[in-house]
């Protein structure tokens, strides 16, 4: 549910004339950010291929594909790799990597295969135990990872525009707007 961007741009231009075209067009066109710029992609590889698959699998179980796309489609695994590589301080980075190892180790010990090879229900079983602090050495990893997935998903283009309702230029404020008219959360 996206308010039509072309209409917004047309409305804004009618209001202020062509001078406004450039910055607003830039904003409303939702152009892709430059991938090389810091803060848009990991500056260096931090995960092994296995860790990367594991992060993707966990992310998708935390925010799965339903009637809207899930974490993988929204680019959450790449977001997590960037945060762990470039945003985290060393101690948090190590905690995160250790946590991945603990989850993977649990899968191998109790299911005799890697986490990514398990059925979704089995993966959920492990994540539920992690959430309840019932996995030895988990050390708060699940809460930490869940937070990253939520942050990455709801700040992604898919999260903002498909799961939530994105209105870049509301044009007015209505402090008594019926939730029933939208049935979703407006992205900030």
């Amino acid at each position, binding site marked *: 549910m996206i308010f039509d961007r072309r209409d917004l741009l047309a409305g804004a231009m009618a209001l*202020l004339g062509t001078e406004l075209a450039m*910055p607003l067009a830039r904003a409303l066109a939702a152009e892709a950010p430059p991938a090389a710029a810091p803060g848009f992609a990991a500056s260096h590889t931090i995960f092994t291929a296995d860790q990367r698959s594991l992060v993707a699998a966990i992310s998708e179980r935390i925010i799965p594909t339903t009637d809207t796309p899930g974490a993988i489609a929204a680019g959450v695994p790449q977001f997590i790799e960037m945060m762990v590589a470039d945003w985290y301080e060393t101690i948090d980075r190590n905690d995160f990597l250790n946590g991945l190892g603990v989850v993977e180790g649990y899968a191998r010990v109790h299911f005799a295969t890697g986490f990514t090879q398990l059925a979704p229900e089995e993966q959920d079983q492990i*994540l539920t135990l992690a959430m309840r602090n019932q996995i030895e050495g988990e050390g708060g990893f699940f809460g930490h990872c869940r937070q990253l997935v939520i942050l990455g998903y709801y700040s992604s283009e898919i999260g*903002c525009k498909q799961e939530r309702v994105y209105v870049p230029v509301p044009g007015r404020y209505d402090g008594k*707007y019926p939730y029933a008219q939208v049935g979703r959360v407006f992205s900030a």
Partner: protein
Amino acid sequence: MANYDFDAIVIGSGISGGWAAKELTEKGMKVLMLDRGRMVEHRKDYITEGKGPWQLAYRGNLPPAEVDRDYIMAKWGGAGLSAQTHYYNNDRLNPIDFENSKPFRWVRPAQVGGKSLIWGRVALRWSAIDFEANKRDGHGSPWPISYDEIAPWYSYVEKYAGIAGSKEGLPQLPDGEFQPPHPLNVAELWVKERLEKAMPGRKLISTRTANMTEDKPEQGRSRCQDRNMCARGCSFGAYFSTQAVTLPAARKTGRLTLLSDQVVTNLEYDPRTKRVTGVRVVDANTHEAKVWRSRIVFLCASAMASTQILLNSRLPGGERSFADSSGVLGHYVMDHVFRTGFGGTVSDPALEPYIAYGRRPNGVYIPRFRNLNGQDADADFVRGYGMQGAAGRGPAGAGGFGKAMKEAMRGYGPWTIRFTVFAECLPYKDNTITLNPAKLDRYGVPLAVFNVTFRDNEMKMMRDAALQGEAMMKAAGLTGVNSSNEEHVPGDAIHEMGGACMGEDPRGSVVNRWSQLHDAANVFVTDGSQMASTSCVNPSMTFMALTARAADHAVKLVKAGAI
């Protein structure tokens, strides 16, 4: 007759400097406006405007290590948000003397337009009570000006800037020239009705703000679009900034020269004529020095920067500033106290069906109610405080994970309301900014040393505000009422004032009733440094009014041949 490059030089291009440039050029003067920051052109250079979180570095938040390295003070003003980091001073490259300073948060901008691009836009008038306060309770330098003298200048700047607000008829918060107020939401209206009934005399109003609710086509500006991305710059020109409002007006005259990246190090003074004869700058990029000459100078570099420039403007052959014959230059540094908050939850099921559409740029305000008619019997402090807040609903917090969590997060949490207290800080002579001549910055300017602390009166006021706040929330029928109190560090409110305070007596003040230096009649200091007290309301409208008034007076003096 001296050979001038310009009629006037305006140092700084923020809220005060922009108004000085507009008024002086419109009155026929040829003006040079200097700013230490880089150029930011309206619209073209608002590089993060309108972007969604996925289009911002790190989805909006700089890595903490980078924040702690470069923005140790600026982070308190929002420099850690990657959508606006480029508008803040790099505190590592442009530091204060941290080692010899008491904790102080000097949040500085890094561009032309100064803090006018990133300010909170709360647009309030001071009242008669505020201008009389120093005289009444004996703190600081008595104000030589009255509310009635300033009122027409408030009207003048409000009309041009475009201020949205409601008229309330309150003596402690005088009405102005307002566009219609931004609306309250359903929860704020709920609280307002119950609070005002339960506690007569307490008011909850739409915060008066410099975000317009009506277009100003003659200025090429349109009303607020409720994006609430103001601090990235606004191509609609909906809020007051130098870029959107005063700079276009000054440029339109054809008499403005604006130079960015020019760090003013000091003013050159001639003791024989008792005039400032030059403004010395160092180019921020090439480090080349140059002296500009003009008949008059408007010093509008911000409260602390203007004071720093004056302190660094020594008498020939001496260590002492030419502007300090009073001995109070750099004294009476103040800031609002504001790390106390309170709030609660509106649990009425009748509000449950509603949310907010749009992102309003302001909130609600509870004007001062303490010590209005002399001293309240139950108050163990002088002066008072106001409260700024807003009600809202965030996305519902959901536990667990998976489909159930995702669906639960499609709903909203409860309506909550939260306020922050803004309290007046008394002027204390020994709250100072000084210079350390042993430590120079990369432009050769001695580093500023801050020795500013909040005292007993401020702390008592904050304790009172927390108690009163909780009592008001309970009286209004909120649930989960609570208050919080964090460390109060001066500078934090970014309402720093004083350093070159105004007064009638040249032995106890730095500028006179016209914001004019007692020690040099051709210099006007019209930003926050001239303030002799802080009131409890946000100061920017007062800086605008005093600047426009000083410019009017200065041009009259020039025309009369007096300066």
